[in-house]
C-alpha cells in the first residue's frame, strides 16, 4: 500500500498538482483530498481509469462546453450520502433531508444526458449511472419537477382532509369574533398536530420506498465523483501534457518528463524546465552531478510521476513505461526529524531503517537524496557505497543521488547531470567579463539539468573546477587546483 505523508506530497510537487484541480462535487473533491493509489493487484482498474482520462483529455477542447456544463451540475450537488444511508437503515427522513435528496436526484437527472453526450465521443469504460427516476417519482409523486420539496395533499386521503380542515379553520379564524377565537385556535392546534403525524407517516413511507434504491443512489454519487475527478485529471493532462504509460513488469522508463510545480516556478522567472529522461531497473541507480539542485529535482520528478500514474493520472512526459509499485519511499535531505533531538545523521539512519523495512515488503520505488550527508565525507562515502551494494539486491528500484566518490561504480546504473559538460568555460568567462551581471545567474542559465547515462568508467564531474574558471578565480589558486586534479 502506498501512503505518502503530506510533507512528502509537498516536497515532490504532488500537492501542488492536486491543488491545481478543482473538484466540483463534494464526491469529486473528496476523491482528490483522499487520494488513493492503485496497487499492483488493481492493474485492470488502473488501466480503465487511464483509458478514461486519456479519452477525456483527447476530446477536452472539442467537448469544452459539455465539460463546463457537467462541472456546473456537479457544483450544485450536495453530499446526501448520510441521509441516504439513514433511509436505508429505516430512519424516517425529515423535510430538509428529503429536499436535499430530491435536489440530488434532479441534478443527476440533468447530469446523465450531458454525460451521455460526452460518452458518445469518449466511449468511457466502466462508468454507468443508474436511472434516478424511480427514486425521483417517490419524492415528486405528482411529477411537478419543481425545485422545492412538499408533501402533496393527495399523499394520503387523511392528509387531504386535514389540510382542507386546516384551511377552513384559518379562514374562520380570520372572520371570527374575539371570544370564539381561542376555541378555533385549539381546534387548529389539534389539526396541525395530526397533520404533522400524518406527514411523518408519508415521510417514513418515502424513506422506505427509497431504501431499496439506496445502493444504486450511493453508487451514482461515487460515479459522479469519479467523473468529476477524471475530468479534472484530463484537464490537468491538457495543461501539463500527459501520456498514458505502457505497463511493464519491472522497468521504469520516462522520456522527457517534467515537474509542473518547478515548471510554473521557472516560467515566472522566464526560464524553462529542462525535461528529464531516465531508464531504471531493479537494483540501485546512482545520480551524480554538481551540487546545484539538478539531482534532487530529477529524483522528485521521478517520484511525482510514479505517484501520479498510480493515482490514475496521465504522466507528465513524452513517453513512459512504468511498473506498479507496492510502495514508494523517499528520504530527502531536508528531513523534519532533525529537529526532534537526534543528530542529523542518527535520525537519517533511523528513517532509512524504517523505510527499508517497508521497501523490502514488495516491489518498491526507493529514493535517497544525498544520503549520509550528515557525516564526514570519508565515512559517508563508505556508508553510501555499502548501502548501494545492498540495494542492488533488494526487490526495488532504488535511486540515490550523491556526490560522494566511488559510489557510482557500486551501482547497477549511473546517471549524471549534464551540467556544464558541453559548455566552453572560456566563452562563459568572456561573457561574464563583458557584462556586469550576477555571474551565478549566468552560469545557472547555462547549466543543463538533463541527465545522461554514464557507461563504464565514471569520471568525477569537473564542474567545480569549471565554475572556478568561469568566475575568474585568482590565477595563482587556479593553477594549484589544476595541478592537483
Amino acid at each position, binding site marked *: 500500500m502506498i501512503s505518502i505523508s503530506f510533507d512528502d506530497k509537498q516536497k515532490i510537487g504532488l500537492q501542488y498538482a492536486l491543488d491545481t484541480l478543482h473538484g466540483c462535487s463534494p464526491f469529486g473533491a473528496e476523491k482528490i483530498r483522499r487520494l488513493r493509489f492503485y496497487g499492483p493487484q488493481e492493474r485492470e482498474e488502473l488501466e480503465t481509469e487511464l483509458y478514461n482520462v486519456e479519452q477525456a483529455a483527447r476530446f477536452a477542447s472539442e467537448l469544452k462546453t459539455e465539460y463546463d456544463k457537467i462541472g456546473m451540475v456537479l457544483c450544485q450537488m450536495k453530499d446526501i450520502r448520510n441521509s441516504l444511508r439513514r433511509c436505508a437503515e429505516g430512519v424516517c427522513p*425529515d423535510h430538509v433531508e428529503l429536499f436535499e435528496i430530491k435536489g440530488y436526484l434532479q441534478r443527476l437527472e440533468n447530469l446523465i444526458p450531458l454525460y451521455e453526450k460526452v460518452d458518445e465521443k469518449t466511449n468511457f469504460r466502466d462508468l454507468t449511472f443508474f436511472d434516478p427516476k424511480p427514486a425521483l417519482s417517490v419524492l415528486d409523486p405528482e411529477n411537478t419537477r419543481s*425545485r422545492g420539496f*412538499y408533501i402533496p395533499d393527495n399523499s394520503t386521503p387523511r392528509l387531504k382532509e386535514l*389540510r382542507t380542515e386546516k384551511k377552513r379553520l384559518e379562514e374562520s379564524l380570520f372572520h371570527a369574533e374575539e371570544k370564539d377565537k381561542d376555541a378555533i385556535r385549539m381546534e387548529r392546534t389539534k389539526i*396541525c398536530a395530526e397533520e*404533522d403525524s400524518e406527514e411523518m407517516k408519508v415521510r417514513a413511507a418515502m424513506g422506505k420506498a427509497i431504501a431499496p434504491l439506496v445502493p444504486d443512489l450511493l453508487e451514482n454519487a461515487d460515479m459522479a465523483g469519479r467523473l468529476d475527478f477524471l475530468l479534472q485529471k484530463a484537464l490537468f493532462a491538457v495543461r501539463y501534457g500527459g501520456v498514458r504509460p505502457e505497463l511493464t513488469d519491472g522497468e521504469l522508463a520516462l522520456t522527457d518528463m517534467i515537474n509542473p510545480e518547478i515548471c510554473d516556478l521557472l516560467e515566472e522567472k522566464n526560464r524553462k524546465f529542462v525535461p528529464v529522461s531516465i531508464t531504471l531497473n531493479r537494483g540501485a541507480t546512482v545520480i551524480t552531478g554538481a551540487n546545484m539542485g539538478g539531482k534532487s529535482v530529477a529524483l522528485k520528478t521521478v517520484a511525482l510521476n510514479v505517484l501520479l500514474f498510480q493515482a490514475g493520472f496521465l504522466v507528465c512526459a513524452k513517453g513512459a513505461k512504468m511498473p506498479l509499485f507496492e510502495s514508494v519511499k523517499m528520504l530527502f535531505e531536508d528531513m523534519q526529524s532533525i529537529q526532534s533531538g537526534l543528530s542529523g545523521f542518527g535520525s537519517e539512519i533511523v528513517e532509512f531503517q524504517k523505510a527499508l523495512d517497508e521497501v523490502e515488503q514488495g516491489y518498491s520505488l526507493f529514493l535517497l537524496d544525498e544520503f549520509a550527508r550528515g557525516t564526514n565525507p570519508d565515512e559517508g562515502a563508505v556508508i553510501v557505497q555499502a548501502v548501494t551494494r545492498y540495494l542492488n539486491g533488494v526487490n526495488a528500484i532504488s535511486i540515490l543521488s550523491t556526490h560522494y566518490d566511488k559510489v557510482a561504480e557500486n551501482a547497477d546504473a549511473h546517471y549524471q547531470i549534464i551540467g556544464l559538460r558541453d559548455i566552453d568555460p572560456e566563452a562563459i568567462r568572456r561573457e561574464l567579463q563583458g557584462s556586469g551581471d550576477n555571474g551565478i545567474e549566468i552560469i545557472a542559465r547555462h547549466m543543463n539539468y538533463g541527465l545522461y547515462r554514464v557507461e563504464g568508467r565514471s569520471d568525477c564531474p569537473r564542474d567545480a573546477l569549471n565554475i572556478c574558471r568561469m568566475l575568474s578565480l585568482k590565477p595563482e589558486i587556479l593553477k594549484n587546483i589544476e595541478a592537483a586534479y
Partner: protein
Amino acid sequence: MIEQLKQNLEQVRTMSIVGMCKNAGKTTVLNWLLSEAQRGRRLALTSIGRDGESTDVVTGTEKPSIYVPAGTLIATAADMLRLCDITKEIVYTTGIPTPLGEVVVLKARSAGYVQLAGPSMTTQLAHLSGTFFDLGAEQVLIDGALGRKSLGARVVAEGIILCTGASYHMSMEKVVEDTANIYRIMNLPKAETLPPEVEESLEDCLRQNGEAYIPGALYDSMVLPLLQNGTLRNGRLVVQDPSRVLLTPDTLGKLETRNVKLEVRDAARTLCVTVNPISAYGWKFDKDEFQTKMQQAVDVPVINVKEELA
C-alpha cells in the same frame, strides 16, 4: 397615522424591526405587518439569530407567536422546523450554519405559526435577502436585534421600525430620552460627499479641512476636547454607519449647538416608532402621555402597539 406608516412601508424593500428592550412589541408589529399591512404582497421573513419563543426567556412572560399568511417565505434554522405549524415546502438550503442547524428557506403552504432563528451575521443576512428576492419575494422583513446592536441594521435593511416600551425603564422620561437618542443616531443624515479620512489626529484633519471622515468609532473623548478648544465649530463629521456613533445624548446636543453636522456613509430610514405602555415587570405608563411625549421627541409616526396594531 397608520395610513402614513403604510405609505412609508411602500418605499422600502427590506425592513428591520428593532427593539429598545424585550416586550417592546416587536412581534406584535411583525404580525401586523404580516397580516394587515401586507396588501397581497409576497413577503419574506427571517430574524437576526434566535427569537420568537412563546414564553420570553428573559422575563418569563407570555408573548405572541409570529403568525404568517400562506405564501410567505421564511428563513429559519432546520431544528426550528418542527416548531412551525405551517404546511411546509422546503425551497432552498442556504448553507449558513447556526447552532440550531443550517438556515433553510421554506414557503408557507398554509397560514400558521413560525419560530425564527436566522443568520447572526449581517453579511449572511444581506446575502439571504438577495436569495429571498430571487425566490420571488417583494418585501423582506427582519426580526432585528435589541438596542445598540440594531444600529448596524442599515447593512441589511433600508427601513427600520423602532419598538420601545415601558419594559425598558420605570421612568417614562428615561424611556423617551434613550429611545429618542437611538432614533437620532439611527436617522443621522446620509453624507452626500465623503470628507478626507482622518489619518493621524482628528484635530489636524479638522483644522486642515474643516470636516473629517472617521473610519472607526466616534467617542465622547474624541469630541469633547475639540469642542472645548474650539476646533469643532460649523464643521462636519462623517462615520460609516450609526453603530459607529458612541456619543452620549449630551455630547450629541453640544455638537448640534456648535452647528457641527454629524453624518453617516450608510444611512437607514426609520419608518415609525412603536410604543408599548405596559411593562412585563409589573408597571405601566399612561398610554396617552407616553405616546405624546414620544411623538414630541421624533418626527415619524408614533404608534401604540397595544391599541392600534393589536
